């Protein structure tokens, strides 16, 4: 009998172009996603060296990081405009498909890849963005790269990679009602820290993972990088196949069924061995809120900020509390917020918006809160509008915007002001991430929606007897 293998090893072996002792492997890349911020210098490098894009047909571009989410026609910032124009020109010169700002397929790169069916099990996928790990939800080996590597992939369609170690994050027991994929990944990072995944590719397994929707799985894989892992993935199953059926870039009819069989065969074999294992109980995870300046600085909503005496890292905790304007042992429920952001490649998909809208329906945004919803893609926005979700948000007092990365990294005009405090469904609560001096609390879409109404953090599970779906 052949040796049992993990999906990570299977995908790796299928993509080796060249291998020699003492060197990383040269891997073939099936899909290269690009955007306006990390690609201009790569194209410039090609031009200077008189090199061409090897496989424009395996390259796909969009504009997301820097695009306005309202009044798109007019980009006031000349440097931002130049960055978009540069991408447009680079794609045209090199015959690369581009979903630009006005294209119906435009959106956050990690939202549109799956929506278009570009993301598929078994593919190697790279993008000049660390949240490329998102695509791992489909059983793809997907990771973020720097601009020099973007240039390398454009020129050669390959990348040099050390074979990563494998790490199994196993989640036993299902998540409780009101507890989401976002809470699960935050709880994992809170428990094991921001560097436990460094040097590894994570495979998430277990009951809670199997029970997640594809969108929930994307949320989990998305934040693998916040645990230090360049890639995190989930073996494909029937849910994966169902999601992809009928998408633009997947085959149709019998060809699809054949393809689906190949995808399912990629799943990790029974008895395969990982380099490292960690476990967490899914049924013990509670709704999470980050209090500090990295995603592991996180506690359940009914908890409090740490005590300086009890922490192993008093200097880090003290600095974070100071930046966040919080005191030690402060209950999370006592923190008042003035901004809410529902969006980002972590939580801006249709089900995220639906769940947040469910909480918001018939209620009003707190008078001291400014709340915005930024759908992950133009297509998500349209679907939500068909369901009347835009109306629910707008009637409650939320702003309803066009698709983009927006306030997750605040490169465009969607910025939290200095000292502002934001309940955000994004992925990073770093200092200044949402604006210079801005304070970020990472939460699930449901928790962000409630925070918008109440002006503070409230446990979604006992929220005014609302029945909240899990």
């Amino acid at each position, binding site marked *: 009998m052949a040796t049992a293998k993990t999906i990570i090893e299977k995908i790796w072996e299928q993509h080796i172009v060249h291998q020699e002792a003492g060197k990383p492997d*040269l891997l073939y890349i099936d899909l290269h996603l690009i955007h306006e911020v*990390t690609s201009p210098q790569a194209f410039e490098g090609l031009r200077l060296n008189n090199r061409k894009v090897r496989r424009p047909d395996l390259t796909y571009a969009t504009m997301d990081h820097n695009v306005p989410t309202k009044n798109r026609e007019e980009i006031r910032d000349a440097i931002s405009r130049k960055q978009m124009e540069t991408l447009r020109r680079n794609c045209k010169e090199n015959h690369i498909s581009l979903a630009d700002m006005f294209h119906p397929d435009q959106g956050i790169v990690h939202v549109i890849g799956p929506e278009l069916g570009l993301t598929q099990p078994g593919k190697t996928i790279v993008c000049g963005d660390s949240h490329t790990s998102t695509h791992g939800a489909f059983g793809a080996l997907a990771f973020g790269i720097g601009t020099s590597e973007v240039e390398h992939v454009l020129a050669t369609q390959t990348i040099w990679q050390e074979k990563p170690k494998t790490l199994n994050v196993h989640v036993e027991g299902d998540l409780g009602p009101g507890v989401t994929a976002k809470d699960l990944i935050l709880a994992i990072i809170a428990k094991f820290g921001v560097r436990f995944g460094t040097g590894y590719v994570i495979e998430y397994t277990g009951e809670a993972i199997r029970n997640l929707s594809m969108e929930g799985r994307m949320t989990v894989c998305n934040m693998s990088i916040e645990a230090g892992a360049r890639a995190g993935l989930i073996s494909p199953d029937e849910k994966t196949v169902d999601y992809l059926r009928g998408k633009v870039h997947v085959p149709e009819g019998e060809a699809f069924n054949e393809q689906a069989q190949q995808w399912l065969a990629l799943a990790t074999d029974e008895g395969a061995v990982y380099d490292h294992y960690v476990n967490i109980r899914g049924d013990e995870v509670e709704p999470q809120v980050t209090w500090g300046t990295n995603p592991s600085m996180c506690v359940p909503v009914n908890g409090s900020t740490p005590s300086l005496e009890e922490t192993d890292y008093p200097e*880090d905790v003290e600095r974070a509390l100071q930046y966040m304007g919080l005191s030690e042992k402060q209950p999370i429920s006592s923190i008042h917020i003035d901004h809410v952001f529902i969006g980002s490649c972590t939580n801006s998909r249709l089900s995220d918006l639906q769940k947040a809208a469910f909480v918001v329906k018939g209620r009003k945004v707190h008078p001291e809160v400014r709340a915005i919803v930024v759908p992950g893609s133009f297509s998500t926005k349209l679907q939500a509008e068909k369901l009347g979700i835009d109306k629910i948000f707008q009637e409650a007092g939320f702003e309803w915007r066009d698709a983009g990365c927006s306030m997750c990294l605040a490169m465009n005009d969607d910025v939290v002001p200095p000292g502002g405090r934001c309940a955000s469904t994004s992925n990073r609560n770093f200092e200044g991430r949402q604006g210079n001096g801005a304070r970020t609390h990472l939460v699930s879409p449901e928790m962000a929606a409630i925070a918008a109404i109440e002006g503070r953090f409230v446990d979604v599970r006992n929220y005014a007897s609302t029945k909240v779906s899990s």
Partner: protein
Amino acid sequence: MEAIQRHRGVVYPLNRTNVDTDQIIPKQFLKRIERTGFGQYLFYHWRFDDDGELRKNFNLNDKRYEDASIVVAGENFGCGSSREHAPWALLDFGFRVIIAPSFADIFYNNALKNGIIVIQVKEELVNQWLKKAERGELILDVDLEKQQIMDRGMVYPFQIPEYHKQKLINGWDDIALTLQHEEKIARYEKSMQ
């Protein structure tokens, strides 16, 4: 990429863990389409206050570190965003070597691609150098060929994958190296059709 075999320089002690790339270069400076000119924005919000004045309480603004070219920092340096603007900013500011107990994977690769020597050493040694550099001037001599760091008379060996070492020493162009395997790439593509 500029070749680098050896580097001797003043140490700048950055006594923080999990220094993320958002701190190294904040997002408002990622709009340029060139690789150059990012040094002025390095650690921007740590170096400058809201009025654009130098912050006195951030030690990189200390005259003592004006000529520093080696960063010694805490664990997980360069975590977060994959932006290569981070090593571009460090390099443009004058840093050629970064020493820490651990690095984030993407940053580590990005730095090497730009000819920055990234060296992983034990936390105790980092702490020792942080203290020394905070107290007075610390000059380290990094010899990539011999894989050792000299601190006055003391010699500390370090590990670096041979492949990365050779690329740094020779300043090789990655793409040119890969294109030597062009035939294999074409063969792979054919087999996939």
